[in-house]
């Protein structure tokens, strides 16, 4: 049995036509199912667990990168197959998973090609797409082996599924694609100097460290954003939870 989790933004009239044509396509394939609409105040995990008890075999997330992160960061422990139907813009994760946007994504779902994906773990919760530590005076310890520090403030982005692009300047067009199944997380860190005028930062060249475990410490609290959720922390421990999510992926996946 399939259960579809629709993001709140899909109730916008703009997406009516796309959603309807997707529902028709899913009915044609015989994989239409129960539809649940999410909003900002719903905790997804108990809902998914309830549906699994009622016999759900596949939970399908319908929305964009933000929906994907919100649902999977809370329900990565649920033992069920997940699917993803990307709608609209802001769909970088779907690209990595080889799932085309809008109606064509139903074809990928019907083929049911499955892969197990790695998930990141930070201070007792999971993150699926990206973790971002904003520029602050921090010290980093990797795999309990070596420490990284800088005279300036450091900004860190830990990538799992969502690709991260960095540029040293506007001419730099080098993009790095992150492989979600390589058994490691990738941390991009770059020293940042505050600009004298108009705020903001001047960034220096980035460093890249693949890792399995990382501890970030600071004397003062620094802000962390994981899957769109912002918190202030003094110490965070980031780990890799390998092969945690069973996911329906496309043939054109980038891993």
């Amino acid at each position: 049995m399939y259960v579809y989790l629709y993001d709140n933004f899909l109730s916008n009239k703009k997406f009516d036509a796309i959603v309807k044509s997707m529902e028709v396509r899913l009915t044609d394939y015989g994989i239409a199912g129960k539809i649940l609409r999410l909003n900002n105040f719903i905790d997804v995990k108990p809902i998914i667990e309830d549906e699994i008890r009622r016999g759900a075999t596949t939970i399908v997330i319908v929305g964009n990168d933000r929906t994907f992160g919100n649902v999977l960061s809370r329900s990565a422990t649920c033992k069920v197959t997940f699917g993803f139907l990307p709608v609209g813009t802001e769909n970088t994760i779907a690209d990595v998973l080889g799932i085309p946007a809008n109606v064509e994504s139903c074809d990928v779902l019907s083929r049911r090609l499955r892969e197990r994906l790695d998930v990141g773990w930070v201070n007792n919760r999971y993150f699926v797409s990206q973790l971002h530590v904003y520029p602050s005076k921090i010290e980093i310890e990797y795999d309990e082996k070596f420490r990284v520090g800088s005279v300036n403030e450091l900004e860190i982005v830990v990538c799992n599924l969502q690709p991260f692009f960095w540029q040293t300047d506007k001419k730099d067009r080098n993009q790095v694609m992150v492989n979600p199944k390589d058994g490691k997380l990738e941390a991009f860190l770059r020293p940042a100097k505050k600009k004298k005028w108009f705020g903001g930062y001047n960034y220096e060249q980035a460093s890249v460290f693949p890792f399995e475990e990382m501890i970030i410490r600071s004397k003062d609290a620094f802000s962390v954003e994981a899957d769109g959720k912002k918190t202030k922390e003094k110490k965070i421990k980031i780990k890799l939870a390998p092969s945690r999510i069973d996911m329906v992926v496309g043939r054109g996946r980038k891993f």
Partner: protein
Amino acid sequence: MFQKPSSDIALEKNLEKEHSSTNTSNSDDNVDTVVGPSVNVEGDFSSAGNIVVKGSVSGNVSTSKHLLVEEGAKIMANVQSGSATISGMVKGNMKIKDTLILTSSAKVLGDIKVKILQVDAGAIMQGKIMMGASSELSEKAVSGRATLKKREKTD
């Protein structure tokens, strides 16, 4: 209308979207480890993939693949790698399985054990160099001596 520019990298995505079709380096096997300039690494530093050092590392560096030490970069301990290109400074012993290239700006203060060595004019080296078959022979000789000693002890 006049928003304060935030430090969020996501802002750069607009630029990236423009360039997304232009150039993408897809790392199939693994992302290279890069130690950027003005970043200091302390402790033993090992990686399964290639390593690029642009800053300073004070601790042993080891990889089974390629090590690139760029001009102005520093490594202050022993180095072990599959192959290496040095343009910066290494203060410690180097053990390279395959090829070691020292460019004109390279400075190595320590012993080198390597199969193939290429040195450009201007490179500075201070220490012993053991190359190719001789280094293998010397290893065999050492292991041979050890077995002889063991036999003598058992007799």
